[in-house]
């Protein structure tokens, strides 16, 4: 079961993982990545952050990434949940959880999905700081992380 969800409401990543593993005794391991909002970025205090996305394309691009992961590894399910709209420090921004028979495939697939989400899925962060609002710049290190997978 592969679930992809974009939502403005907060969510509990633990519940998502419970749902992912429920009722499938073939699952030997689940690897999850939980992305959190920090209160400092580029040396400035960030009070809130607003995430914009491209409805339609976002879901499509995440589906493509998850499909690719399923082609590369034997997976027993995955869940990708991403928040949009306004959030505050400590909030969960994103969850990527992958289940498989053994840990190796789950670790790799989870990292693959988050790496490509960061460079291919149309989300944009805008931070509120004491200096005003600012759009977050893309990181070169994210491109390098993606390039390791050699698509």
């Amino acid at each position, binding site marked *: 079961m592969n679930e992809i969800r974009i939502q403005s409401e907060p969510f509990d990543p633990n519940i998502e993982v419970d749902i992912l593993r429920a009722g499938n005794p073939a699952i030997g391991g689940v690897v999850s990545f939980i992305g959190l909002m920090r209160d400092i970025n580029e040396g400035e205090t960030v009070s809130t952050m607003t995430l914009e*996305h491209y409805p339609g394309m976002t879901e499509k691009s995440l589906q493509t990434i998850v499909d690719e992961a399923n082609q590369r590894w034997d997976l027993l399910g995955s869940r990708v949940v991403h928040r949009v709209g306004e959030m505050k420090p400590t909030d969960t921004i994103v969850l990527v959880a992958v289940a498989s028979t053994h840990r190796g495939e789950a670790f790799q697939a989870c990292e693959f999905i988050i790496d490509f989400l960061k460079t291919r899925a149309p989300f944009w962060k805008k931070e509120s700081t004491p200096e005003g609002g600012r*759009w977050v710049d893309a990181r070169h290190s994210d491109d390098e992380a993606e390039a390791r997978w050699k698509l």
Partner: protein
Amino acid sequence: MIKVLFFASLRERLDKESLEMETEGLADLGAVLTRLRERGGIWADVFAADQTVMMALNQEMTGADTQVQDGDEVAFFPPVTGG
């Protein structure tokens, strides 16, 4: 006609979410970009040759040499920063 969408910092700088464009004479996405640049002012700045602008055709990320046709949905946006 094609529909052209703008997101994030591009949308803010242009003060525009979307517009419609005649397809006549538009070979590819690069031509769409050039036509936007030719509007001048802030449009020339946002779509200047040294700016990193990403693009999508019908909700799939692609490059400037991708052909466009009537009814397509085109989008321009800055590098993505989700996750």
